[in-house]
């Protein structure tokens, strides 16, 4: 990614700008008179227009101009902020996004429609389409006519303080052609009254040039409004005759020059006064400015390198531990510590607050409320919780689906809510919190809850379950994750967009996460996604099963036990162990993987959990803690359900990473079968 491509930078910035505008507008819908919000929206529009036209996005600039004008009027108190205006600009803002994405597309019709809407919203007070175009200092057009001009000018007294250097202006006049300059020093006060930073000179310049009159005006363009300037065309012969005050002709350089050092001299005196001027806000800003924006791709590359380093380091550790060389061992320990720290630092770099994810939903909820006619209040909690950037990106679509579901299926229309004794406005709570190595993101609504009867009827009619089949409540709710399952009586505009709960589940599982649903009839539903904080490197428990080595994510491991010979024999055929008075189903990985080897005498059980369900995994040996760089498996291995990835061990061999979710499900299934059989 070339970070020095202004167009690319513009697009990123435009996207941010639009997000800022959108957020501002959405907030405005609740508090129309918030001056700070109005300013923020205006600034966003202004920047978008300004940089848009800089980078050739003329359609965008032209269109945005109208919205900006409307907001400028509001900002200046010339017009009130109305719900219609905010709505119109919200719509317009989507269009701007399209204009950024596809500047050459045919957007005319949409533009016109939205502008009409905007104009209607501001009561026709917006200004007529005014093309935005560059008018900067134009290059003088050279004509072949030589003319002589007499220019008399004096600058405002504070011109030099404000950065205008008269010498520069005189130089520019000299550049125009043959030039004669006289300084008029008559206004200079006596030394005792002289303020060195003030300008008291005026000039009389005669210049013979081929340039047009406008070239002279251009010289003074910045001071034109405040100065006295007389320009008259004179007869060319007059040039030689003009110098009636030859004594002062060399003055300008000499008189003006001392002013600069004089200005410098007073610096130490006044600095004391100026220093405490830095307000607290400045410091806060300075702190924020310390961040650096880096393309995600580079972070990923860095991550890869750190991953390789971790692998190399574990090889080193292995070699060192087998060596008697004390020096090598101590270096190896040092490297192990450093790479661990580097890994932790790397992790933090990739973390972003979920606020960036949650913010998108404000718009979605706003739109859905309008579409469905439901009154919805969106509450977000734990927005500062940080999650790996990749996780956030991949979660966006599933969350959209879940929020849509909550609004479409969960929340009742206002009348129904009132009839049920609930508040008219339904509440959607989007929350995030960290729990150990996982982040839990939940979407909670206070709607009608999942209708079990309908789920069952639907599942039976589509053949997912046998009519009358006994199911636990949890199992029944899990049915909504079956492919093609939808409880919506009809496919509305909201649901049926191609993403189903099965896709949601799949996505969450590829992130090595799990979904829990709690739903109480009449009280609403709570869908919780538990996702590991990061994807790239995990702490794992390295185990041996037969001749192969496997990694179990440490975050899922609850405890490790010895499987005594008696217990082993006793449990044969039953596959349960008693763990502090509760029975935990277990899987013999040797059987699952069909290793064909004889079990070790002292087998171990690793108890893993997905939060609510527990399963024991019987392994031959627990090797120990292992920092694991996850490498995803190829598409060919997509249907290998027991594994979520692979990793490279210190000796260069590959170990598979166990997919906890699948194993637990398999264990539960086995338990169910046994229960059914017994």
């Amino acid at each position, binding site marked *: 990614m070339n970070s020095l491509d*202004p167009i690319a930078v513009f697009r990123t910035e435009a996207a941010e700008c639009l997000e800022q505008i959108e957020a501002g507008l959405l907030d405005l819908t609740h508090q129309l008179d918030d001056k700070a919000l109005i300013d923020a929206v205006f600034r966003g529009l202004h*920047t978008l227009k300004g940089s848009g036209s800089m980078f050739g996005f003329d359609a965008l600039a032209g269109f945005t101009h109208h919205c900006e004008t409307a907001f400028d009027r509001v900002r200046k108190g010339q017009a009130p902020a109305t719900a219609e205006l905010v709505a119109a600009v919200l719509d317009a803002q989507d269009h701007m996004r399209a204009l950024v994405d596809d500047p050459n597309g045919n957007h005319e019709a949409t533009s016109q429609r939205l502008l009409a809407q905007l104009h209607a919203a501001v009561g026709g007070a917006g200004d007529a389409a005014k093309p935005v175009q560059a008018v900067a200092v134009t290059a003088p057009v050279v004509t072949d006519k030589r003319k002589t001009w007499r220019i008399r000018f004096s600058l405002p007294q504070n011109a030099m*303080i404000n950065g*205008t250097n008269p010498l520069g202006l005189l130089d520019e006049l000299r550049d125009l052609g043959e030039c004669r300059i006289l300084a008029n020093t008559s206004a200079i006060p006596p030394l005792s009254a002289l303020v060195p930073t003030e300008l008291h000179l005026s000039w009389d310049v005669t210049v013979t040039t081929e340039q047009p009159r406008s070239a002279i005006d251009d010289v003074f363009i910045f001071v034109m409004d405040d100065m006295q300037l007389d320009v008259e065309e004179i007869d060319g012969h007059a040039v030689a005759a003009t110098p009636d005050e030859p004594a002062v002709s060399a003055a300008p350089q000499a008189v003006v020059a001392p002013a600069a050092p004089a*200005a410098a001299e007073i610096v130490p005196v006044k600095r004391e006064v100026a220093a405490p001027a830095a307000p607290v806000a400045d410091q806060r*800003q*300075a702190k924020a400015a310390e961040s650096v924006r880096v393309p995600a791709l580079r972070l990923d590359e860095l991550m890869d390198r750190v991953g390789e380093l971790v692998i190399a380091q574990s090889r080193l550790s292995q070699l060192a531990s087998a060596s008697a060389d004390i020096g090598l061992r101590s270096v190896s320990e040092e490297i192990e510590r450093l790479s661990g720290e580097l890994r932790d630092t790397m992790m933090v770099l990739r973390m972003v607050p979920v606020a960036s994810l949650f913010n998108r939903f404000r718009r979605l909820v706003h739109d859905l409320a309008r579409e469905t006619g439901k009154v919805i209040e969106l509450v977000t909690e734990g927005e500062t919780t940080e999650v790996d950037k990749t996780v956030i990106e991949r979660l966006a679509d599933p969350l959209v689906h879940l929020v849509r579901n909550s609004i479409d299926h969960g929340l009742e229309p206002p009348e129904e809510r009132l009839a049920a004794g609930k508040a008219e406005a339904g509440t959607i709570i989007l929350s995030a919190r960290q729990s150990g190595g996982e982040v839990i993101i939940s979407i909670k609504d206070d709607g009608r809850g999942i209708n079990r009867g309908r789920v069952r009827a639907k599942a039976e009619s589509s053949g997912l379950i046998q009519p009358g089949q006994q199911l636990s409540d949890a199992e029944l709710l899990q049915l909504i994750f079956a492919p093609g399952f939808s409880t919506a009586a009809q496919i509305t505009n909201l649901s049926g967009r191609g993403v189903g709960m099965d896709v949601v589940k799949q996505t969450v599982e590829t992130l090595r996460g799990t979904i829990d649903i709690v739903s109480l009839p009449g009280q609403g539903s709570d869908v919780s996604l538990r996702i590991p904080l990061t994807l790239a490197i995990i702490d794992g428990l390295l185990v041996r099963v037969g001749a192969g080595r496997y990694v179990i994510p440490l975050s899922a491991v609850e405890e490790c036990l010895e499987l005594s010979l008696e217990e082993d024999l006793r449990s044969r055929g039953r596959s349960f162990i008693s763990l502090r008075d509760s029975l935990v189903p277990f899987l013999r990985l040797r059987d699952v993987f069909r290793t064909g080897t004889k079990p070790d005498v002292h087998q171990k059980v690793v108890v893993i959990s997905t939060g609510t369900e527990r399963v024991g995994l019987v392994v031959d040996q627990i090797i120990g803690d292992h920092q694991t760089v996850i490498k995803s498996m190829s598409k060919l291995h997509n249907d290998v359900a027991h594994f979520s990835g692979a990793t490279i061990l210190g000796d260069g061999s590959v170990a598979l990473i166990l997919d906890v979710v699948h194993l637990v499900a398999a264990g539960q299934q086995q338990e169910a079968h046994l229960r059914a059989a017994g």
Partner: protein
Amino acid sequence: MSAKILTVDDSASIRLTTKVTLTNAGYEVTEAENGAEGLDKAKAGHFDLIVTDLNMPVMDGLTMIEELRKLPAHMGVPIIFLTTESDADLKARAKAAGATGWLTKPFDPENLVKITKKVLGR
């Protein structure tokens, strides 16, 4: 020694364009994202020219210019502000605050260099 220029703009793309243009023209460029940051950077170092946007969060360009002009060290340092054509009265206010000149957005990189040369005196 090349002249040092401070550019203050909340738009990353404009900052980039400005920086590339001025750097290519042989100037040394420092960037700031808003008036407050610009003011801090100006206080911390010497600049031969300051180019600033007017509409910015935290501290706008007008306030920054006013604050800069209160600092004796920034007496006489040219300040160019970027403005759009529709900002006629903003232009007057910026000049009253102590700005030296302006450049109308959207600008041509060539114009920026030209105006830079103009206010820096070649």
